[in-house]
């Protein structure tokens, strides 16, 4: 079917916004990255705005949405409800962040962020599960959107965290180990939390925070929540989520091959109304899409392998380099996400393809 560019922008940036919101909620739960909470919120809100503008551009008569937009079985209505709830959650998160003495939102708010973000992505995927389009009508679409959101979210937050760390730390302290040590010493924690290896440091931080009661802010302040820890944690999670995302894309590619069976075969046919139009053969289209640059170059190479490699390299780098690598990876992942969505539209044949 025809490309629906605004909807591709919408689904891509909703994934980014939801991913960033969920990741910052996760970091808040783990007591990491308090310096980047506000910035992550801004990125998430901006993504939502870009996605929202995209979806409105898709509407031919957007002014009529005020006439009545309440048909609840419609995926679009559900998406709208999801977006309103998401926007409200952003506002609540912002207010709780500003009112907090520790610079971190309360745990319930962090959990709310994760739940709302996941719910929005699932609702969005559900609205494209249509029996009329065999390639879209699969739970793989959920998996793809969710893993895309996680990949984009961790890359964006890692970039933000690296950038914040690079901005506040003197050059001499900007190596990851030194930064962690500096933070730990300022916070007055034991060597366990400020360990050179991030894994040990992260684990220590998690345990400390998990032991915290929500109201015990003095205890919470003792937790190292430096951007450096958050950056490396996010970079690591981004390549792990990137691997899951790669599996989702691979599973979808395999599904393309099988989806041909869902289309009726009428043998030879001809459309006298469009005598020069080529005959549509979904099974051939599915097989040939894997050789199209939009798939192997855009969605796989640029959109998956490059950001995966960059995120992997970024984990052990200094904050500024980490920010650059993850930022580049984020741009590549966005391009890849756009290309894969284009593939989904290119293969978005109706069950009855001949009309």
């Amino acid at each position, binding site marked *: 079917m025809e490309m629906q560019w605004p909807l591709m922008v919408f689904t891509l940036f909703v994934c980014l916004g939801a991913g960033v919101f969920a990741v910052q909620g996760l970091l808040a739960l783990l007591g990491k990255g308090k310096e980047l909470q506000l910035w992550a919120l801004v990125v998430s809100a901006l993504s939502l705005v870009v996605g929202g503008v995209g979806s409105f551009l898709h509407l031919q008569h957007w002014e009529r949405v005020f006439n009545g937009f309440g048909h609840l079985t419609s995926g679009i209505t559900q998406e709208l409800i999801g977006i309103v709830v998401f926007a409200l959650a952003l506002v609540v998160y912002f207010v709780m962040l500003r009112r907090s003495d520790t610079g971190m939102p309360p745990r319930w708010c962090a959990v709310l962020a994760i739940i709302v973000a996941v719910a929005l992505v699932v609702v969005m995927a559900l609205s494209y599960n249509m*029996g009329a389009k065999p390639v879209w009508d699969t739970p793989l679409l959920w998996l793809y959107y969710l893993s895309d959101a996680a990949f984009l979210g961790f890359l964006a937050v890692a970039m933000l965290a690296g950038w914040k760390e690079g901005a506040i730390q003197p050059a001499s302290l900007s190596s990851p180990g030194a930064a962690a040590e500096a933070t730990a010493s300022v916070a007055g924690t034991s060597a366990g939390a400020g360990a050179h290896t991030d894994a040990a440091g992260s684990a220590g931080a998690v345990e400390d925070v998990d032991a915290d009661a929500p109201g015990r802010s003095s205890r919470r302040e003792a937790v190292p929540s430096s951007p450096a820890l958050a950056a490396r944690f996010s970079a690591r999670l981004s390549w792990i989520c990137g691997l899951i995302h790669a599996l989702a894309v691979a599973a979808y590619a395999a599904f393309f091959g099988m989806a041909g069976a869902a289309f009726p*075969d009428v043998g030879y046919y001809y459309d006298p109304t469009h005598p020069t139009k080529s005959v549509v053969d979904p099974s051939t289209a599915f097989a040939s899409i894997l050789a199209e640059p939009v798939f192997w170059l855009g969605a796989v190479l640029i959109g998956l392998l490059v950001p995966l490699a960059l995120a992997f390299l970024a984990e052990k780098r200094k904050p500024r380099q980490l920010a650059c690598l993850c930022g580049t990876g984020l741009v590549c992942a966005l391009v890849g996400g756009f290309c894969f969505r284009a593939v989904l539209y290119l293969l978005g044949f109706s069950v009855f393809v001949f009309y």
Partner: protein
Amino acid sequence: MTQYAIVTDLNRCVGCLSCSVACKAVNNVPVGNYWNKVLRIGPNPVEGGSGHFPDVYMYFMPVGCQHCEYPECVEVCPTGASQKLEDGTVQIDKAKCIGCQFCAMACPYNVRYLNEEELAVEKCTLCEQKIVNGELPQCVSQCGGMARYFGDLEQGLESFEGAENGKDRITLGSFAEPYTDDQVYRLPDVGNSPNFLYILRNHAWQGGGQ
């Protein structure tokens, strides 16, 4: 309950495209849009034949909105612009349509079009303006092969009426060649239960569905 529908006798359809042209003229369908289109299925080899001419067959099949029992287009419409009426037809209240085109995506048959001037989605209305006055849809009354019949599925196929043969309308029961229940087909069903029927005798149905 009423469920208006069209039955097409594919053994009589000659592929003249009269239904397509008549629909365009009466409903002012914009250039490039089709509420009704005729497809040629085949030539496909006859079972047990040589696989080559003359052991082949083909038939023509008019396709449009199937006015489904459980229309996907109505389910996905965010504003309720697409509705299933009491007469069983699926109609679009264009004043409510926001032009999101999700109905066009959700339609298994691809028969919905965006009107580029009105910026609203359109499709076959089963000539609502005519049938409320007791007239036949234009694709039925102008069918060159006298292959199309309009009626209420609840009243049985025999009661379906076709074009005038002289001065009276033909009925499927009196005019059509005999057929059996297993020679009546529908387009592929993905849960929407299409209501339009196709009669095809002595050939293999190739349209998917059953």
